[in-house]
């Protein structure tokens, strides 16, 4: 099972060059990315907990990365900047999560709060 899936991966390069896919096209990939971004946006806006909110953001970035790689592979002629963009997005995700959690910890220490509403008094 696993060997099979990994083997599929190894043989895709030639397949990709031959371009025989009907379903894995730029449009379907972008639609998939749009779906992930949409779900992520819903999560980021609707969740009350910080951590769940960050999950929404991460899901959006997931879609962004997929779109970037799709453009790189199918529309950008393999220009290296496409991959670089994805790496940068990954770094941004790591930074977002690390800073987010650090802030949650700091706020939690001070206020015993982990919900967005409880922080409204922070503004004052």
């Amino acid at each position: 099972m696993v060997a099979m899936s990994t083997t599929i991966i190894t043989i895709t390069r030639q397949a990709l060059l031959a371009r025989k896919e009907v379903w894995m096209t730029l449009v379907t990939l972008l639609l998939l990315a749009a779906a992930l971004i949409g779900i992520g946006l819903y999560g980021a806006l609707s969740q009350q907990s910080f951590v769940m909110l960050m999950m929404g953001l991460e899901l959006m970035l997931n879609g962004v990365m997929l779109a970037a790689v799709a453009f790189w592979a199918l529309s950008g002629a393999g220009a290296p900047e496409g991959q670089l963009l994805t790496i940068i997005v990954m770094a941004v995700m790591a930074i977002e999560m690390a800073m987010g959690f650090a802030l949650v910890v700091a706020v939690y220490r001070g206020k015993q709060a982990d919900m967005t509403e409880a922080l409204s008094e922070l503004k004052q």
Partner: protein
Amino acid sequence: MNHGILVDIAFLLLAVLAVVSGWRVFRTDSMVRASFFLLLSFIAVGAIMLLLAAEYLGVAMFFMMGVEMMVMALFMVMFMMNPAGLNPMVMVHQHRISMGAGVTAFLVLGLMALLTRFPNRPLPAGLEPVASLGHEMLGGSMLIFESAAVVLLATMIGVVVLSSHRGRYGAANEGSLPPGLAPGGDPAGKPKEDQDGGHEHHHHHHH
């Protein structure tokens, strides 16, 4: 020929997995399960990247997100009121607006994808994706790459400072007090008496 079909099947399965597990993130009771659903979504997207011949990015996705979601799950357990999901609860606000925003985003982006004509320029035959990425990162875009590295380093330091219990001048929740100007003298910038210290809040929580 054969391969194209295999890749298509794999892509469709992975796409469904990515969307369904992404959706389940916000629909499950248990917070640990939520972060592992998100991980599943990431893994599916990483595998699609492998299908697109982005060999480094796809695999990097696995290990980056594996660690990240593990940490996420732990923070879930730490900070959520009800980490095990024993009492299912709806912890959402502005539900309808969010739902609308999500659907709108999907529709707008989807229409853009459908209606725009993108140039059809697939990967050139001799391209080595990993080597090309490496040459770009440590060649033309070295500045960007290095800036990202510096930002990451700064983040690490910042995170430790923010989350550490003991600051340089005492416990984090007691406000900092710089050392005296002269040995044993008054501190440099003397803060006003704290009237609403963290301690009080703490007590409040327990009542």
